[in-house]
């Protein structure tokens, strides 16, 4: 297979601080341009929040990072997404391997209709895990702060869990295969405030090891959780573009761009 360059961990990575980077990225759905000329760097082991009004391409941006956009038949991508020194959209790169390394958590909890145990174990199994599954399941559930809740009912259906627990299970499922980056698409939007708080705490803890990219429409959440923030908007043709990007504190207290200031102070949509 030709996807080898991505796996060569031994090679030194030039820009050590950058986990993944979009360069002049354009995304189209059919003839509609959803993203226009985006240059975005995601810092390693940090939480980067993507904010902006609805319809500005936040989710599209996120899904470009692990080639999930390809599952939409009419979708077309131009430009580059550099990961481990390689453009993941190169014809030689295997999307399966990309997704193995860049995990994702979705807006609504979507556990498999299997047991809690199987939800965690399945990803590891298909990816060729050869260790102790029991240990891996326990460790992943502990990392997702779910172990204490479910330790006695691992064989029960995951669908029986509450929404917040299901979402933490999805996080546990994603980290069970040890991705380098975890993409989160409004992970708390379907949850109540208490469950949301738990997810946020979890992200801060896990950020010591993983790189997070989080799409959120909730500015408070972005301000609370993230280290870096990228602000997107859409132009007259409804194509999304990146307005500015920077450390969260700077962006929220001292935005460089007028449009950002309007948005975060609520003067805009």
């Amino acid at each position: 297979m030709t996807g080898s360059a991505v796996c060569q961990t031994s090679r030194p990575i030039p820009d050590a601080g950058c986990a993944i980077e979009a360069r002049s990225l354009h995304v189209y759905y059919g003839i509609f341009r959803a993203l226009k000329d985006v240059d975005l760097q995601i810092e390693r082991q940090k939480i980067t929040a993507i904010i902006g009004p609805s319809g500005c391409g936040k989710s599209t941006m996120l899904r470009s990072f692990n080639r999930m956009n390809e599952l939409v038949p009419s979708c077309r991508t131009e430009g580059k997404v550099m990961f481990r020194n390689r453009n993941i959209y190169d014809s030689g790169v295997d999307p399966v391997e990309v997704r193995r390394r860049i995990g994702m958590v979705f807006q609504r909890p979507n556990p498999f209709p299997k047991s809690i145990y199987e939800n965690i174990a399945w990803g590891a199994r298909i990816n060729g895990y050869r260790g102790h599954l029991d240990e891996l399941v326990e460790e992943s559930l502990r990392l997702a702060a779910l172990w204490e809740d479910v330790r006695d009912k691992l064989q029960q259906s995951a669908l029986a869990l509450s929404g917040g627990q299901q979402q933490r299970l999805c996080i546990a499922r994603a980290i069970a295969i040890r991705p380098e980056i975890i993409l989160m698409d409004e992970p708390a939007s379907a949850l109540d405030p208490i469950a949301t708080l738990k997810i946020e705490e979890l992200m801060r803890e896990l950020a010591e090891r993983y790189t997070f990219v989080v799409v959120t429409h909730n500015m408070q959440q972005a301000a609370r959780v993230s280290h870096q923030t990228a602000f997107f908007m859409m132009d007259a043709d409804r194509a999304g573009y990146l307005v500015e990007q920077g450390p969260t504190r700077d962006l929220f207290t001292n935005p460089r761009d007028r449009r950002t200031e309007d948005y975060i102070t609520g003067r805009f949509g």
Partner: protein
Amino acid sequence: MTGGSEDLAPRARSATGGRFLQQSHDLRKRPRPGDMLVQGLLFFCGAVSILTTLGIVYVLGRESLLFFTHKGVSLLEFFTSTTWQPSIGKFGVWPLVTATLMTTGFAMLIALPLGLAVAVYLSEYASARARNILKPVLEILAGIPTVVYGYFALSFMTPLLRSIFGRDVVSIYNTASAGLVMGILILPLISSMSEDALSAIPRSLREASYALGATRLETAVQVVLPAALSGVTAAVIVALSRAIGETMIAALAAGAGPAFTINPFRPAETMTGHMVRISSGDISYDSMDYDSIFAIGSLLFVLTLTLNVVSRRFVARFREVYE
């Protein structure tokens, strides 16, 4: 819906004049015999289906009872004996049942793997265009009358089998040919119902699988198919029931004469085939032969009804999770 809220507003009797407005101060409930009559008639329409079921149960029960009260016929013999020879008073249903099981078995052998494969292909692999062509084609073909399939079995499948396995091995009438063609008949049923179940699985589940680095096959077989399992099971059971009750293919191609054999290339009459042969002949209504088809009919009814009830259970379980 039967509540009286709509009765609050009295009907306008005349579009002109203020009289009806004055009347509208009176908010009493008033009887509406016409509406009551309509509702009663409509209820009767719904109740006809109950009457049909009761009719089936009554007819099958009464005639079967008649059959089992004949001298020399016993329930025990019916369910244990392996000889069905009315001429010498032997009424053991097993030869007919084994023939039915054989045709059904062959049918499932063809329809189960192929039908599932078609369903998975259509739902997980085919482009929207291919799916939009193939699905209606399969559905129309599922609507072809079974007697035409019977013709197909005799004029195509049997000669084919005979040319492959030899004319000495394969009889002109045989359960294999009937079963294989039955398989083709129920294939669209399995694929269509299963495809519906697979398509009903939410996109988010597939995305979750892809996001973990699963391939398309792994997603289809290890995530989507298990998730749709109860729906797929329901489809398979319905198909099974259809194959057991399938009549014309068996009547034309399986053979005319009960035979207790497990050789698929020998003729053997199925339950349905026997019923058709007896009722198409000139046998008197009062003969034991005639009563016997009601006894066989009862068995068939119980079998298929059980399968259908089980299938509906699976459908209900599937709906609970995804709808």
